[in-house]
């Protein structure tokens, strides 16, 4: 799935599964991230994003599967695997009685020795240079988030795992983070795994998007593939419908309607492909009640893929 196959793999997840009792948190997740790639990890609340990130960082131990970072297994060779990994998981909480500079100094020293100059550079990068010698106690949530990003960048991270990094950031902070991630990826070949509910930001920053729902990966698409999916055709068919409808080129997803008498099948197709799609569907025995075409955007793709279905009582509403 890597767009640039010649690049080294920063992260490789194979068949990663995790259960809490009978509850499935992660279900056979396969995922790769190449060096320099920015991957957006999306999913409704409780989909398993944070558990996946924790598993990558060795905070949570998968029941099954393998996770490698830069070729090192995160369970058996954690120190090497995470040597150049920076992360924010959930809200970054710092010892409030230390200054921002001290926090960064002590935390980054756990990975490698870092000069004071480098610490100040990173603080400057996240807009906290003036607060370097202030205790974290007096920081706002947004400032703590910036400090969290700063600690993830130190000492010289080549792979960033950012769980909701834009939380609490003001618009300047969000724009700054967007620029920073682009720069890190393009100029410094840093790989980034970022989870966010700000889909507009994900669209702008990420070269690839993975959506998980109920612990299952339901989409893994590059920016170009998303753009193609963006232009989608939805046909509403009477149920039961022939399973062969899913074999038609461009098929994305099916959504059973509340009444269960009809299902909406989505295909990534331009408007010119609508007549051919209808001809093929009818040829396969489908009873079509309506056809819609339009640009959907990541938000609509996300909602359609993770919407309430018969086998999915997840969260497209409160």
């Amino acid at each position: 799935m890597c767009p640039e196959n010649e690049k080294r793999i920063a992260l490789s997840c194979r068949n990663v599964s995790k259960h809490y009792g009978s509850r499935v948190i992660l279900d056979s997740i396969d995922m790769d991230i190449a060096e320099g790639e920015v991957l957006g990890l999306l999913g409704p609340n409780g989909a398993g994003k944070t558990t996946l990130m924790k598993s990558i960082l060795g905070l949570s131990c998968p029941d099954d599967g393998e996770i490698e970072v830069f070729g090192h297994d995160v369970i058996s060779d954690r120190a090497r695997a995470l040597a150049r990994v920076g992360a924010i998981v959930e809200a970054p909480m710092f010892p409030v009685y230390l200054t921002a500079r001290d926090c960064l100094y002590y935390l980054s020293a756990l990975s490698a020795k870092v000069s004071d100059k480098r610490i100040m550079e990173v603080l400057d990068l996240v807009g906290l240079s003036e607060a370097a010698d202030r205790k974290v106690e007096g920081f706002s949530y947004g400032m703590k988030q910036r400090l969290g990003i700063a600690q993830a960048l130190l000492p010289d991270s080549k792979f960033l795992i950012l769980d909701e990094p834009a939380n609490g950031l003001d618009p300047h902070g969000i724009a700054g983070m967007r620029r920073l991630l682009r720069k890190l990826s393009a100029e410094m070949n840093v790989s980034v795994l970022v989870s966010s509910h700000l889909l507009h930001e994900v669209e702008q920053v990420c070269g690839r998007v993975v959506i998980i729902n109920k612990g299952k990966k339901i989409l893994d698409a590059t920016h170009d593939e998303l753009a193609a999916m963006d232009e989608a055709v939805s046909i509403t068919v009477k149920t039961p419908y022939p399973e062969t409808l899913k074999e038609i080129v461009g098929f994305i997803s099916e959504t059973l309607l509340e009444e269960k008498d009809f299902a909406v099948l989505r295909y990534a197709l331009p408007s010119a492909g609508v007549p051919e799609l209808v001809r093929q569907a009818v040829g396969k025995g489908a009873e079509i009640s309506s056809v819609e075409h339009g640009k959907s955007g990541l938000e609509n793709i996300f909602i359609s893929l993770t919407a309430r279905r018969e086998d999915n009582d997840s969260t497209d509403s409160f």
Partner: protein
Amino acid sequence: MIALIRFEIRKTLSQNKCLLGLGCVILINVVFILGFIIKKSEPGHISRMLGEKLLKELFNVCVYVASIVSPCAYILFPVLICIIVSYVFAGEYEIGTLRLTMVRPVSRLKILIAKWVAVAFYGAIMVGALFVSSLAISWLMAGRTGDLIIIGDVFALPFKFVVLPDGIDTYGRIILTYFLSWLSLTAVASMAFLFSVATRNLALSAIISTTVYLSCHVVTQIPFLSGIHPFLPTRYIPFWRYAMLEKIPWEKSLFPDMLWTAVFALAFMGLAAVFYERRDF
């Protein structure tokens, strides 16, 4: 590992809660001074036990500095250490700062050891602060040193009193007692780490570890329940008190008790490490 230990020590010592220990040292000194003053004016049975000559010797720097270590090493510091351990591990887990350390390329075992070292360092500061403060305060109050009169009751030792003449050996004895009491505190810290890792809840960890320690300690003091004593860590942990015997029973009591204390401490830390390794964070 050095960076991790430095970080943990810095965090431990930077917390305002750590001033609690210094507050305890001041408080116990105040209570002890008042106790000494009252005893001096109303000696009661001590006067009959020691006689007039020894009674005059009783209120000096050596006696004060040696006596004050007993309540601190038996009760005060172990309780304090249980609370500090709860802050250092369960408290950090609850707040979320533990995760920041755990996402770094350091093993959980190293994190646990670094935290144990930080708490041991804190314990050393508390013991040192007690020694210095009691020395200074007793010097100001009594204004003189003298023979070290060890009252058996004060140390839960089976004799009425022992007199060690003023001199370098006596000071060595006192310093040895303080040092050993610090070692015994590190064993209490190991036990507290087990409950802290197992519960990952600040209040629960502090309550369980202090309750377990105090319950074991109380039972150890009851001769009627001597059958259970060999199985309780508190039977061995106060090995520091043997330094207050006229002739230190190194081979008969002190070393064996130290060894058993080390075994208990290693078992507690081993279990804590197993809990820590197996849990998701």
